Every structure is written in structure tokens, then in C-alpha cells.
């Protein structure tokens, strides 16, 4: 027994090293495992308030661009209002679902954003109190996607950025119908890859890639990017397509969280697809 204690004392540094590293590993693993979000959940609460203050400090420098983009966003929205006024009300989803609409949109502000890492996260100032919850898509004000919500506390929500190794978004090549998944392989925050498009597909450089709407994250037809380059890797049956993102994620400031009101119903069907 004495020998054992002496052994631990003599190698104390090594044991402490192993202990601390295991704590770090545990944190890393829980972070990657989506169900055990306890640590992150608390963490969001601890630093979010401070984070918001830091962000407010930097806000002043961005004011010019923000007011600019707000104006153009408003213009866009006005356009849509005019457009919808001219349409027949019967063909909108709103009337089908008891006037509630299929999506509810929550505007939010990005208070932390980083694009430098391999797995980038963001923080927005909306949480469960505002109806934002896990697994909702987030789009940029003017165009393009931003990320997907992961861990939400009452007033804040952490997103995985589009620039994350776990991102996978169902997408379609506009006007051509072929669909695949958009993933982020590169280190370049302005490029992503479209995968799983079969080799018989025909498309050109400059075609637009939009969301397919096959998941509950994003409605169909939201623009993601433009095809810049493509090739077929040797021995593969699928294209490797590089797309240029339509928006600059590093500048995402005012974003909209998309809450698919029919998500649960859709998901229950998607889950049973595998059974048959």
C-alpha cells in the first residue's frame, strides 16, 4: 500500500497529465456526441452574456455595412409583399394549414462567429424562449445559408456553421433536378462541395445550387451557391463538384431561423421510410 502511494507521488505529474487530458477528451467527445449536450448547454449560458457585450463593442465598426444591408433586406421583403398581394391566395401554403403558414421565421443576430477552424460554431441571440430549438436551419438575411441550430438555452442558441465538418445539406441543381449533399471539405470559407451527384447528370459551370427541401432544415429553393468547377474522381460513379457560396459567412450578422412547423410530421414519415 505504502509502495503504491509512493509510486503515485513519484509519478504525480504523469498521472495529473493523464487525468487532465482525459477531462479534455471527455469534453471533446461530448461535444461531438450530439445527445450529451449538458456541458455545452451550461457553457452557452455562462459566456453568452459576456459574448454579447464583446460583440456590441465591435458592432460600432460594422454599423455602416449593416444599415446598408438592412435597407436592402427591407427592400427585398417589400418586394415579396407586393408579389404575394398579386398572387391568388389559394396556391399558398398558408391557406392550406389553417392560415398559420408552413414556416415561422425568427429574426436573430449573430453574436459570435468564427470561420478559421475545421469545425466552426456560431452563437445567436435567440433561444427556446423565442421558439428556436435544436435542428432548425438558419439563413442569411439577403441570400444563402448560415448554419444549423444545435444547443439552445432560454435566450441563446449555438449553431454549427455551414463551415463545419459535420454539415451535410440536401441540395439540388436548379432547373436540372439532380440532387446531392453539400459538405465542407476545404479550408476555404467561400467554397463548399456538392457530393453524390451521379455521373450521368448533365450540368454546367455557373449553374445555381439550391436547397432541395428534402429535410426539415431548409425550405426548398434557397440559393446556396454557384457551380465553379467539377470533375469525376477516378473509379467513382459520382461527381465532385466545387461550389462558390453565394454569401460571405464571415459577414453574417442578421440571420433568420427557419422553424418548419410541420417538421415533426415530416420526420415521422421519413423515419418509417427505412422500415418498408
Amino acid at each position, binding site marked *: 500500500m505504502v509502495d503504491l502511494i509512493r509510486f503515485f507521488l513519484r509519478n*504525480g*505529474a504523469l498521472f*495529473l*497529465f493523464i487525468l*487532465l*487530458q482525459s*477531462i*479534455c*477528451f*471527455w*469534453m*471533446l467527445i*461530448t*461535444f*461531438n456526441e450530439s445527445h450529451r449536450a449538458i*456541458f*455545452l448547454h451550461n*457553457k452557452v449560458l*455562462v*459566456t453568452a452574456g459576456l*459574448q454579447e457585450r*464583446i460583440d456590441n463593442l*465591435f458592432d460600432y465598426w460594422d454599423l455602416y455595412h449593416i444599415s446598408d444591408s438592412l435597407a436592402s433586406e427591407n427592400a427585398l421583403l417589400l418586394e415579396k409583399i407586393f408579389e404575394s398581394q398579386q398572387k391568388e391566395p389559394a396556391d399558398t401554403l398558408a391557406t392550406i394549414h389553417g392560415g398559420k403558414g408552413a414556416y415561422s421565421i425568427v429574426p436573430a443576430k449573430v453574436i*459570435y462567429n*468564427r*470561420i*478559421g*477552424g*475545421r*469545425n466552426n*460554431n456560431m*452563437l445567436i441571440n435567440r433561444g427556446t424562449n423565442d421558439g428556436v430549438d435544436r435542428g432548425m436551419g438558419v439563413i442569411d438575411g439577403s441570400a444563402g445559408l448560415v448554419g444549423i441550430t444545435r444547443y439552445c438555452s432560454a435566450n441563446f442558441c*449555438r449553431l454549427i456553421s455551414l463551415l463545419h465538418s459535420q454539415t451535410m445539406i440536401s441540395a439540388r441543381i436548379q432547373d436540372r433536378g439532380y440532387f446531392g449533399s453539400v459538405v465542407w471539405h476545404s*479550408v*476555404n*470559407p467561400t467554397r463548399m462541395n456538392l457530393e453524390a451527384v451521379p455521373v450521368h447528370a448533365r450540368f454546367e459551370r455557373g449553374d445555381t445550387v439550391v436547397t432541395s427541401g428534402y429535410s426539415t432544415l431548409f425550405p426548398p429553393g434557397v440559393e446556396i451557391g454557384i457551380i465553379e468547377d467539377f470533375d469525376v474522381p477516378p473509379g467513382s460513379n459520382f461527381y465532385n463538384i466545387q461550389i462558390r457560396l453565394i454569401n460571405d459567412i*464571415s459577414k453574417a450578422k442578421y440571420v433568420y431561423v427557419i422553424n418548419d412547423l410541420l417538421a415533426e410530421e415530416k420526420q415521422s414519415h421519413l423515419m418509417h421510410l427505412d422500415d418498408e
Partner: protein
Amino acid sequence: MMNERVRKYIGWGVVLALVQILVFREVNFGWGDFYHVHILVYPALILVLPIKIPRTYLMIIGFFLGLILDLFYLSPGIHSSALVFMAFIRTLVLNLLEPRGGYKVNSSPTIYHLGMNWFLSYSAIMIFLHHLFYFSMEVFTFDEMLYIWLRTVFSFIFSMLFILIFCVIFNPRY
């Protein structure tokens, strides 16, 4: 005397963490398709702490400094893990670089005590290993070795630059 010293180290820790969070976290550095520069200055604290400080204390300091940075980077475990690793290997690096007469009892591994040349090789080894460990933890898979090495090498160059500037400006005397 001791109190003043401790206060000074805490002050440096706060300054380094603040500079990292407020300045270098916001810097996204790159040319065209090249986005591999990622400046980390806070490991400078582990570099300049006194030689006689026990390894276990050093690791605990590293762990908590890393934890604070992790909170702000939203990256649990990555910064703390890399700093604990750096604190662990510091003794080995110090033994490796021990000058002929040994270290003075109350000195720190700084430019003031051991000269620019010695400090350059010491900090280069430490920062390089820290960055290698940090980016390996960040990627967490060995599938992307090229990415890890590119990040490590290019970030290392810029981090070293800023850490040297920090050490020359503050020039820790203790």
C-alpha cells in the same frame, strides 16, 4: 516579493487571454485560397513562468487558462488539452536545453535571464509542439494530416512573431 510576482503573472495571463479573445480570435488571415494562419499568443504565459514552479501546478494553470479560452472559442477541450500538453513537456524541453552551468535557482526561462538565442530555440520548440498538438486535437482525425501540418507550420511562424514581440516589450525580469 512573492505576492508581487504572483500578481504580475496573473496580470500577464489576463492580458494574453484578452488579446487572444479580443484581437486574434477576430483575425481571419489568408491569401486567396490559403487560410492556414491562426495566431495563438496565450501559450507565452506557460513559456515565461519560473523554472522552479512544479510541473503539476504548471499543468493546472495551463488547464484553467485553456478552459477560459475554450469558453470563448466554443471549442470544449481543445485549448486546455494543448496547454496541458505544453506544460507537461516544458520540463523535458528545459532539461534538453539546460545551459552548461545549470539554471539559476530563482530564474525564469526568459530573454532577460538566458539570452535571445536560447529563448528563440526554447520558444520555437515549445510553440511548435503546442501548435501541432492543438491542430491535431482540433481536427481530431489523422485523415487530414496535410491540413494539420499546413496549419501548424504557418500559424507557428506568425504566433512566434507575436510572442517574441510580447516578450521583448514586457521583457519579464523575474
